[in-house]
């Protein structure tokens, strides 16, 4: 008896009630995408990339489309893939203008590198034929609002204090 298997997570944080159902739907889709690769005799390193790609393409999750924004309002993505059989590693960090960072990380796994960061990572992705996209394709209204909320947090507190009806 051979059991092939996959387990996925969609991030551990204070997920609000209104995001619960979509998160559950998205995580099921991701695990389904991964197990189908295994059922078709695919390798575990390709199954995890299929599952994570599904979540990167789902705006409910903080990766790819729907990723958190830097204080400049830009998207910088980090990802890694590791294969236990031979300890091979592929990773990118601060990758810009590419939708699926995990797929670029998968390409790094097959290269002689283990980690490529920043502009070099974007250049590597371009060399491997990945489409270079504008940040606008990765930014969601939800994340824009989250950034604005933090940007204005200081102002909010200040105005409350100035209004004199608050305490530390």
């Amino acid at each position, binding site marked *: 008896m051979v059991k092939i*298997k996959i387990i996925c*997570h969609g991030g551990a944080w*204070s997920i609000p009630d209104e995001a619960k159902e979509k998160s559950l739907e998205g995580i*099921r889709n991701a695990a389904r995408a991964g197990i189908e690769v295994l059922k078709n005799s695919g390798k575990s390193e390709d199954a*995890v990339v299929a599952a994570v790609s599904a979540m990167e393409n789902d705006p409910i999750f903080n990766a790819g489309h729907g990723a958190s924004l830097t204080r400049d309002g830009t998207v*910088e993505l*980090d990802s890694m*893939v590791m294969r236990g059989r031979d300890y091979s590693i592929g990773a990118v960090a601060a990758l810009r203008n590419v939708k699926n960072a995990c797929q670029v990380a998968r390409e790094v796994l097959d290269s002689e590198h283990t980690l490529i960061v920043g502009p070099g990572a974007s250049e590597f992705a371009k060399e491997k034929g990945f489409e270079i996209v504008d940040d606008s394709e990765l930014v969601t209204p939800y994340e824009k609002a989250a*950034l604005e909320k933090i940007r204005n947090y200081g102002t909010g507190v200040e105005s409350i204090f100035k209004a004199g009806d608050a305490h530390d």
Partner: protein
Amino acid sequence: TVGAVAFDGDGFACCTSTGGVTFKRPGRVGDSPLAGSGGYADGGAACSTTGHGEGITKALLAHRVVWGCGADQTRASKAVDDALDFMKTEIGSQGGAICLTRASYGVGFNTKRMPWCYISFDTETEEEEILVGIEPE
């Protein structure tokens, strides 16, 4: 952050991907792309983590989980809980992790919620098991 761990009947792999944290400094990188922190895999187990990036990196959380499984394939869940407890008490950071060994799986988090889904498939009987969760219990 999102992650996946798989076993294809022969070997393990893990994958983790993230946009980081809102309002981060450009160039700030957390644990996700760092082998041993955001994810780790060897011949007997694999793990993917999520949570406070700097804390996970200090705890070397993914490697700590895989190492915690040791030779006992039934320890995945215990290894995840022990590693998260260490990170919380020693470093004061919260997060979550998923893990697979040949005989077990582990899911743990000490934040409000973490969506997770486990699917196993018996290639002989074609029996499939699906488990899904998001609340702490």
